[in-house]
């Protein structure tokens, strides 16, 4: 056989293997996305300690894995809020952390500490709105967040003391482990009533929430 024939056959075989592998992998992932999660993953999804907003008996539960330093998380936050406002009492939002950005774990600890003062959601929204100021070049700097929280009525000295607590460190470590179990590789990642997004984007998220709202609609 000619050398060029051998080479071209090898090249084509490699290319075909890559394409077939890709198509199979994507098809497998999409078929799994629509299914309910396994028991281990369901356990990883629902932790009692996680901050939540919305009625406890709300039929639709959105679990969001976020990193306060993540730009897409800040962009998607108003969208989720808007959908929640449009469906009062029907959606509960649970926040979990996947602090992928450098320094973000410290910011998350400070954010968790604001819960003791009942200012969590205001503090979170202030962070998301002022991301550029405290996370320049995708590096979260905890020293820069205090300024963003002025005027919220927070006792910042208490936050600085509380954020050292071992319970908070434990909760963050658990979130990171759960993110791994749930194969969260990028933020934000949403699970709506235990279902993940087949692919990332505003439309898939809207559709996922709309489906869950329809399925649980009172008759």
């Amino acid at each position, binding site marked *: 056989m000619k050398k060029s024939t051998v080479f071209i056959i090898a090249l084509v075989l490699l290319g075909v293997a890559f394409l077939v592998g890709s198509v199979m992998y994507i098809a497998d992932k999409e078929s799994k996305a629509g299914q309910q999660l396994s028991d281990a993953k369901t356990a990883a999804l629902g932790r009692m300690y996680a901050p939540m907003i919305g009625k406890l008996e709300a039929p639709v539960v959105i679990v969001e894995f976020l990193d306060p330093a993540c730009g897409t998380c800040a962009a998607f936050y108003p969208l989720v809020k808007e959908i929640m406002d449009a469906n009062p009492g029907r959606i509960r939002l649970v926040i979990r952390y996947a602090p992928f950005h450098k320094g973000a774990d410290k910011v998350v600890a400070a954010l968790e500490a604001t819960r003791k003062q009942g200012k969590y959601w205001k503090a979170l929204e202030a962070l998301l709105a002022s991301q550029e100021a405290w996370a320049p070049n995708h590096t979260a700097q905890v020293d820069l967040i205090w300024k963003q929280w002025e005027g919220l009525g927070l006792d910042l000295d208490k936050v600085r003391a509380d954020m050292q607590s071992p319970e908070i460190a434990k909760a963050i470590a658990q979130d990171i482990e759960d993110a791994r179990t749930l194969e969260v*590789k990028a933020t934000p990642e949403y699970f709506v009533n235990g279902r993940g997004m087949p692919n990332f984007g505003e439309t898939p998220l809207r559709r996922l929430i709309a489906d869950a709202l329809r399925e649980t609609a009172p008759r």
Partner: protein
Amino acid sequence: MNPTDPISSADTDQRAWTLIFLAWLVAAASTLGALFLGEVMHVPACVLCWYQRIGMFPLAIILGVGLFPLDRRVVRYALPLAAIGWLVAAFHQLLIAGVIPESIRPCTQGVPCTDKVIEWFGFITIPLLSIAAFSTIIVLLLLAAIRKNP
């Protein structure tokens, strides 16, 4: 070994072609494998992974170019890339194995290099696959560079 030998034996050329072809095959498969992990599975690539890719991706190109027509000097250009890739892969593997302490870990931003994204059979990690691929390429290229004495 005498590179200016005017008598080029068809046998040694055939042998060199096959060895470089095999090295190209390993490089091309590794390149596609890395692209599969990154672009299809969306596994984030850490800094050390990128340095290994910088060694591997060009190998898939230049080894292929060196085959048509056969240019044995391609070994000279390919070996440094393979050697650098091998060193980075070895460093990465030591980091994952915990032999190199965390304090000199170069990856603090983005994806930590100590994350084991894949662990097949309990010991096969991505950097281990990388070491295997670079080692195979280096051995094949060295064999191709040596002219067999009759």
